[in-house]
């Protein structure tokens, strides 16, 4: 017997998992996906949404699988009649106080609440009652907060505390009025928020969305292009969301080797410099002190005659190149090659020292 493993049965399948695994983790390791809203493998487990409940033989309750340890000999059903009925009720209770404006919701397609409602056939809620009517918080340039769509899973609170450590979010008020929000319930822009956007990345509903993507595309309509951040030297990876040949946003991914879901304000929201109207789009040649648009060939010819001429007249070391710590390896390789092989000088450097 392996002392470090537990053996249990999930949906009739024998499953072995490391001691200390939860039922949810054990199921996942066997390829059995249990619905969940508040669970995120990169955050502490809260057991708040209860959607991951399962039936355990001999247990008269339906425990939340994300916080229940798997034990030897356990017999678990993840989609039994009792489980499905309970899950439907949970979804109906969540939907009772959730706007059903999915047709215009920016998260549609990446909304776990909508996905599970679809899976379990929950169209609306039999529970009629008061609904919150919180004002929209779009006071900052990056994140739209619609607290009416919050299901209190607490992922944003945990991401702010456990990933970034900014501790800007917590729970406020009691009972029906409970809210995952900033200290004093102020808009993000007035809070201690550093706009890393970790809260947006983990939010399972439309409560937190990227402002840049709002109204631009349904979640299944854009391509994701995995790339590396152009700002500091940490080397975070993320996906550029591209619709009709335009970048509309940045999405972090748990697969990123250095950063996982985490990004900072620059990486997640600073990409829009690429569409700044001041971007240069054509070569410019200075004529009588003013820059005049020119064709590529005209620019190259002028560069060739001037640089080659100066090299002829004053020697190779009259030329110097500044390459770039912001450009790719390949571009840097070419710049030093051109400087050494054609201009004949080792006068090539970049801002590593300045």
């Amino acid at each position, binding site marked *: 017997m392996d002392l470090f493993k537990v053996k249990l049965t999930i949906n009739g399948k024998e499953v072995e998992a490391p001691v200390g695994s939860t039922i949810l983790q054990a199921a996942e390791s066997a390829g059995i996906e249990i619905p969940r809203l508040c669970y995120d493998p990169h955050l502490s487990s809260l057991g708040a949404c209860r959607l991951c409940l399962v039936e355990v033989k001999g247990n008269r309750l339906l425990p939340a699988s994300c916080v229940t340890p798997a034990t030897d000999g356990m017999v678990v059903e993840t989609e039994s009649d009792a489980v499905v009925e309970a899950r439907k009720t949970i979804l109906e209770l969540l939907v009772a106080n959730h706007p059903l404006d999915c047709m215009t919701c920016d998260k549609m397609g990446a909304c776990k609440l909508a996905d599970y409602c679809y899976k379990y056939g929950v169209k609306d809620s039999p529970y009629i009652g008061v609904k919150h009517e919180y004002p929209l918080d779009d006071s900052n*340039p990056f994140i739209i907060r619609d607290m009416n769509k919050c299901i209190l899973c607490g992922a944003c609170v945990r991401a702010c505390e*456990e*990933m*970034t450590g900014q501790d800007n979010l917590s729970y406020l008020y009691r009972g029906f009025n409970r809210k995952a929000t900033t200290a004093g319930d102020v808009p993000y822009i007035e809070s201690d928020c*550093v706009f890393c956007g970790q809260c947006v990345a983990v939010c399972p509903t439309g409560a937190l969305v990227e402002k*840049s993507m709002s109204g631009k595309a349904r979640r299944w309509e854009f391509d994701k292009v995995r*790339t*590396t*951040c*152009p*700002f500091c*030297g*940490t*080397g975070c990876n993320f996906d550029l969301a*591209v619709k009709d040949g335009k*970048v509309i946003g940045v999405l972090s991914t748990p697969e990123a080797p250095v950063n996982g879901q*985490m990004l900072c*304000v*620059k990486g997640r929201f*600073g990409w*829009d410099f690429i569409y*700044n109207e001041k971007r*240069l*789009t054509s070569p410019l040649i*200075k004529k009588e002190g003013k820059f005049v648009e*020119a064709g590529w060939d005209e*620019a*190259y010819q002028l*560069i060739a005659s*001037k640089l*080659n001429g*100066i090299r002829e007249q004053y020697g190779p*070391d009259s*030329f*110097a*190149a500044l*390459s*770039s*710590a*912001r450009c*790719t*390896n*390949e571009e*840097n*390789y*070419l710049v*030093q*090659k*051109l*400087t050494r*092989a054609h201009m*004949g000088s*080792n*006068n*090539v*450097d*970049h801002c*590593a*020292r*300045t």
Partner: protein
Amino acid sequence: MTNPIYEITEEAELMLLIGTNATEAHPIIGYKMRQAARNGAKMIVCDPRRIDLVDEADYWLQIKPGTDIPLINGMMHIIIKEGLEDKKFIEERTENYEELKAIVENYPPEKAAALAGISVEDLYSVARLYATTDKAMIFYTLGITEHICGTRNVMSIANLAMLTGHIGRPGTGVCPMRGQNNVQGACDMGALPNVYPGYQAVTNPDIQQKYEQAWSTALPNKLGLKIPEMFEAAHEGKVKAMYILGENPVLTDPNSNHIREALEKLEFLVVQELFLTETAEYADVILPAASFAECDGTFTNTERRVQRVRKAIEPIPGQANWETICQMATHMGYPMSYHHPSEIWDEMASLTPSMAGINYGRLENSSLQWPCPTVEHPGTPFLHSGKFTRGLGSFQPSEHIPPGEMPDKEYPFLLSTGRILFHYNVTTPYSPGIASIWDKEMAEFHPLDAEKLGLNKDSKVKITSRRGEVISAIKITERVQPGMIWMSFHHTATPTNALTSDVLDPITGTGEYKVAAVKVEKL
């Protein structure tokens, strides 16, 4: 970095941060440090400024700017006196220990603490804690290197790590966190005046011959000029023409008025840029550049991890940067013909043993840390296991070297500079979103100084050094010490580097951005 980023949360029992403000300059690394500290790892912060991570730290040594060497020498003095050094590591893996011992002998705790402006008790505590923790990582950034004694500071840190055997194992090491996205890669690619790709010396005849064969041309074996020397040579009329790709030295280099004069003197300047920057204004020809979203290629991060950059949209100027460089070279009579950046990488890798095993195929779904000499090699997460690159680690001790310019009667404030969370050098001000919430320089003043100068939060000031002057808004905060002003350098309207010192580290040519003397006038 000798060790990978993931060891911060997975291995480290202690983090010694010296001259690094990670939550702002390297936020994800900073967040990981915070996670590690909250999970029980010890944290020591040595910084003249109360950075955010001080809130997580077990010790904060608020040293005087430019006193890193006395601090580290003082720690080593205590470690040796108390017999806490790693005798086996010193014996087996290092040399020149006697010289180290002799020099740090001159830094008894009382003297070292007084020079650094900290308490003797704290110096004892951190020296003992660092030496006796098995897995202790050191992190530093430009707070160490941007000094007249930057190289000596780095060597002192290496001395401390070797003295205690904190290198060559997981959870240890010396981790400089590099600034720009690809500053590691630009160095690795040989965009340096002394080396070809992979740090192969231009003065080595065998290496020279290898590249001459590969590139079918004769190559120079004389060391080239470093950036400050280039601008100096332009001043003197020796450098007549420059090509500048994606850099804005007028805003980012120290003593910027000097740089402007140098650029003005050039006969011909080509700049390849995204925007009409302060530097591009001096160009004779500007070639429009493509952004990271418009080019295929690779970046190498601070832990030597090579990762793909992928073209997501068509280049806004119509072509990628590598295509522009190739076309320019071809027009100049040096044909460069590649179909894809992967071919450029392959050529580089075929000439660079430390990266020979990396190719785009391997990078498609993962990343690799060099050295990676063969296509079977898994890459190297941490360096110096069992042996240093040069064989034995050589202790290179140093005496205290004070900053090149200190406040005096005429210029009574000490100016230090750095980066802030919301901006990265000079690109982010072009982000409409970021610019809308942080659009100007806010020079930091201690409340006592603000009171003395009659400043309130809405004041504007003129700050003047021996080299230039700028006008800035201010922020009154206890993050800085009395007598110290702190500024970033991201904003065109307040070009902070007009003020910074022209004192350079004599070995690297790095400017002393961290210490300059200035005076302040309320406007």
